[in-house]
């Protein structure tokens, strides 16, 4: 044979050798996979996800004094105290790579479940892969409504999706209207990937249904060098409420450009994402005073629930920042998974799936403002009630729904 063929033989044989040297799930250890963007423009999300999940593991794997499922025990009690170990993989925002990594985690690392994955496009292929292998996929933070509507048995989403978030936002606007405030026109400002598309589709529908006029419908290319023309359209429309769906970089550019063009939105009601990221708030926080955003997580209610500050302190020590919308959901996904493992008493796909489907965790035993965690037939937690928060100073205050509010909302943001 010639050198070319030899090269093939050698490379495939050494690849096989590599496989057998991989750390296999040893006795007393349960491996879970996590697929996140670890490089590229959203790498920071992956870095924070890692910290969030590690925070959960710290609580699960050692006896911890906090009111969360699985905290008291060391590891998973029903599986002989086996410790949970998470292997992280980078999907680089590419659905094919996400699928490849999920498959690798399942077949090589023997992961019993997958957590992921921020980008909804990747969650689509990861979810399909998990379904094919009969391994549960806990979708921590991808919020596209289409994900749980594909008849997947192994898909579980503890957190809310875009329709639930946007409904809460419009409920709030309805309330303001009832109280006599001027809320007639809205402006949609959304980036052009799945996140922005999903969000704006729902918002457009709700605006029509609830009698709000859409004064501007601006779709922009994510990570553009300039947003001047787009912001000018918003300025010309001068809507009562700006409804933006942007990632971090575009939030920074949007607010800087708005300031440069002398545009101060009357109100901002954001779809979280970039608007609750430290990087954005550090640089344009001064321009976002009084902004409202939907949230999965209410840090300011820590006074009412000790577990919130307990967990936040651990996370902050690791990550150098507070828990936010995304990291809190990643944390909870891990807790939910551990709880299911405990009830299943098995790492096999079907028993674990059944245990997840039977999940019923009361809201007080979580760090979220949810009523409870209970999945419906499609795997969606319909009780993941979102809240609205207002940005004041450097913190967020929960202002809606009234039942859980910690402060009165200030409306309008800019007169």
């Amino acid at each position, binding site marked *: 044979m010639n050198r070319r063929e030899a090269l093939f033989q050698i490379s495939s044989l050494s690849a096989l050798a590599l496989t057998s040297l991989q750390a296999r799930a040893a006795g007393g250890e349960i491996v879970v996979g996590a697929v996140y963007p670890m490089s590229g423009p959203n790498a920071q999300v992956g870095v924070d996800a890692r910290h969030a999940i590690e925070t959960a593991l710290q609580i699960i794997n050692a006896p911890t004094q906090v009111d969360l499922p699985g905290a008291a025990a060391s590891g998973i009690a029903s599986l002989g105290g086996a410790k949970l170990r998470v292997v992280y993989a980078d999907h680089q925002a590419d659905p*094919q790579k996400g699928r490849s990594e999920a498959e690798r985690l399942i077949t090589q690392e023997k992961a019993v479940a997958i957590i992921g994955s921020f980008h909804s496009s990747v969650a689509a292929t990861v979810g399909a892969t998990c379904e094919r292998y009969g391994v549960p996929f806990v979708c921590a933070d991808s919020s596209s409504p289409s994900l749980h509507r594909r008849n997947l048995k192994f898909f579980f989403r503890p957190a809310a999706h875009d329709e639930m978030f946007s409904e809460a936002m419009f409920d709030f606007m309805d309330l303001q209207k009832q109280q006599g405030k001027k809320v007639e026109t809205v402006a949609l400002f959304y980036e052009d990937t799945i996140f922005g598309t999903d969000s704006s589709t729902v918002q457009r529908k709700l605006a029509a249904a609830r009698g709000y006029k859409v004064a501007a419908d601006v779709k922009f290319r994510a990570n553009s060098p300039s947003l001047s023309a787009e912001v000018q359209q918003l300025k010309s429309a001068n809507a009562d409420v700006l409804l933006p769906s942007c990632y971090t970089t575009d939030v920074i550019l949007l607010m800087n450009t708005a300031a440069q063009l002398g545009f101060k939105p009357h109100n901002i009601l954001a779809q979280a994402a970039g608007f609750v990221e430290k990087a954005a708030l550090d640089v344009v926080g001064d321009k976002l005073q009084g902004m409202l955003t939907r949230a999965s997580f209410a840090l300011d209610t820590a006074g009412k629930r000790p577990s919130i500050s307990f967990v936040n302190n651990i996370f902050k020590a690791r990550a150098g920042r507070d828990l936010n919308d995304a990291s809190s959901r990643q944390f909870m996904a891990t807790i939910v998974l551990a709880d299911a493992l405990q009830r299943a008493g098995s790492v096999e796909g079907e028993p674990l799936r059944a245990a997840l489907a039977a999940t019923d965790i009361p809201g007080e035993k979580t760090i979220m403002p949810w009523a409870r965690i209970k999945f419906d037939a499609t795997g969606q937690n319909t009780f993941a009630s979102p809240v609205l928060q207002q940005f004041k100073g450097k913190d967020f205050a929960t202002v809606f729904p009234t039942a859980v509010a910690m402060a009165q909302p200030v409306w309008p943001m800019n007169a």
Partner: protein
Amino acid sequence: MGTAAVSSGATQGVVAGYRVHRRRQVLSVLAVLAVLALLPLLVHDAYLRNVLILTLLYASLAQAWNILGGYCGQISLGHALYFGIGAYATSVLYVNYGLLPWFGMAVGAVLAAAMALLLGWMCFRLKGHYFSIATLVIAEIGLLLMHNWEFVGAAMGIQWPLGPDSWATLQFARDKAPYFYFVLGLFAITWVISFQVEGSRWGYWWRAVKDNPEASESLGVTVFSSKMAAAALSASLTAVGGSFYAAFVAYIDPDSVMHFRFSLLMVLPVVLGGLGTLWGPLLGAVILIPLTEVTRSYLGGSGTGIDLIIYGALVMLVSVLKPEGLVGLFGQFRGRRGAGGAA
């Protein structure tokens, strides 16, 4: 008379040597294909199989690109357009109208060929970098159009329904072997086409034009129509690759099939392996793709960028140490020159 006898003898020697060389090429590819066909029997790990499939896919795409870029000299930086056309045509026809992917593949190939002819007609008169940027720009327009066109799902993409394993729909839940054999077949086809092109009149014209630009004036229309044909061929093969990719991943969106990085990933293996050579694309793919995958998978999870550092450094190293392509390492260059005679 003496000189005539010597020269005719020398010519016969050259021709005979060339025929032997061509025959050796055919035997080589049969051997390589045989070895590759055995791989799924030796390698059972799903991840490794995935890497093998991607390697052969990119080898096929690179080989297809090489027809237009390496042999013909038209450097396209927008081949992702054809990849996307194949992926989208197949997906839309299957998901919306139930047309089996095999037929969708044919439709995609025809559409891509038509697009290539249009592009060629508009842009072949452009020289060098202007042509390349034009191809890049047209591919970007395609990407933006798909990103905003509701009919093909815009940013939401197209999800293939999960169904039972079947060759008809080219869907296999866990088994990767069928996919492997498909791309192996695709690679074999692209190789055979390249082989034919290399030995054909087209190949002769294009080499003449590359060596002597003034010759292009006199060969004019002939060369132009051969280039058009090469473009159509290259595009349709790329589209078939795209169709395969859509069936393989079962979910596509604009960024995942039409992004510039795909165009780049079709060109890099050829440059690494050797432009305008028969084995360059495969060689380049065999080195580049496993490297990309393995660095991301085993080093990327940390989020530190280590995988990018290693990948980038290795790519730089190869380009500095062996700029004309790695094919030269295997003596092919020498063999080709010796048998075919100096160009």
